[in-house]
């Protein structure tokens, strides 16, 4: 019996906010905290919580750096994180292209 691809989705990444964070970090070397917050459109505290979860899973690293008088928080994905995101994306593609899942009708 073949299992439905949904069972292969990564439970850590599957949350919409964490999925967006990983999509962003997987495509860059590093991004600043505020850029991620603005792009994903969530609050500082919500982002911090999601980052902690991703960091505990070993998917991202968080590094604080001093630039002049300003402290910058740099976020980057780890090789494990990029692999997990690539697998998650492949599964989503598989689900999206399965028979019986017609594309959304065009909006007028």
């Amino acid at each position: 019996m073949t299992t439905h691809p949904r069972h292969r989705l990564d439970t850590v990444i599957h949350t919409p906010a964490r999925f967006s964070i990983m999509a962003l970090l997987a495509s860059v070397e590093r991004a600043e905290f505020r850029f991620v917050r603005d792009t994903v459109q969530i609050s500082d505290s919500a982002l911090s919580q999601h980052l902690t979860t991703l960091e505990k899973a070993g998917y991202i690293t968080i590094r604080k750096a001093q630039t002049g008088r300003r402290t910058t928080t740099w976020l980057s994905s780890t090789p494990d994180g990029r692999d997990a995101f690539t697998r998650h994306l492949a599964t989503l593609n598989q689900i999206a292209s399965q028979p019986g899942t017609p594309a959304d009708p065009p909006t007028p």
Partner: protein
Amino acid sequence: MHDENEGRAARTALAEAERVRGRAVRSGRWFSGYLAALGVGAIAWITLLEAVWPDGAARTYTAAGGALAFLLASLWAERRRVFPAGASRRFMISAIVWFTLYLLVIGPMVRWKMETSLPGWIAAATVMALPFFAAAARTARRS
């Protein structure tokens, strides 16, 4: 019906991933311009140092001025919000190749054969800066 909803949710997630990726890549485009500017700066610096003011206090000031300019450029870069994929590796490789060429290969050869010839040093400095331009082109292609 269940599969249809899952399919729709998956497509929405994929579209969101594409939106976020596009924004991140656009925000990292500054890096290719930065590398190209470093290449132009390196050409100017080497030419001034070796052909325009090859000795005396002016050479010392030029060397210090160039080093200060590169330091300020790296501080400016550190204030950007996004570094594109492979940015540090590309910068490091370009800088190491440029410095090795200047210190060990092209620099001594041009100094020996052409001394302080302005066209000679412009040509040599341009060749030495090619790694920066190549890295800039690669970065631009990926974005």
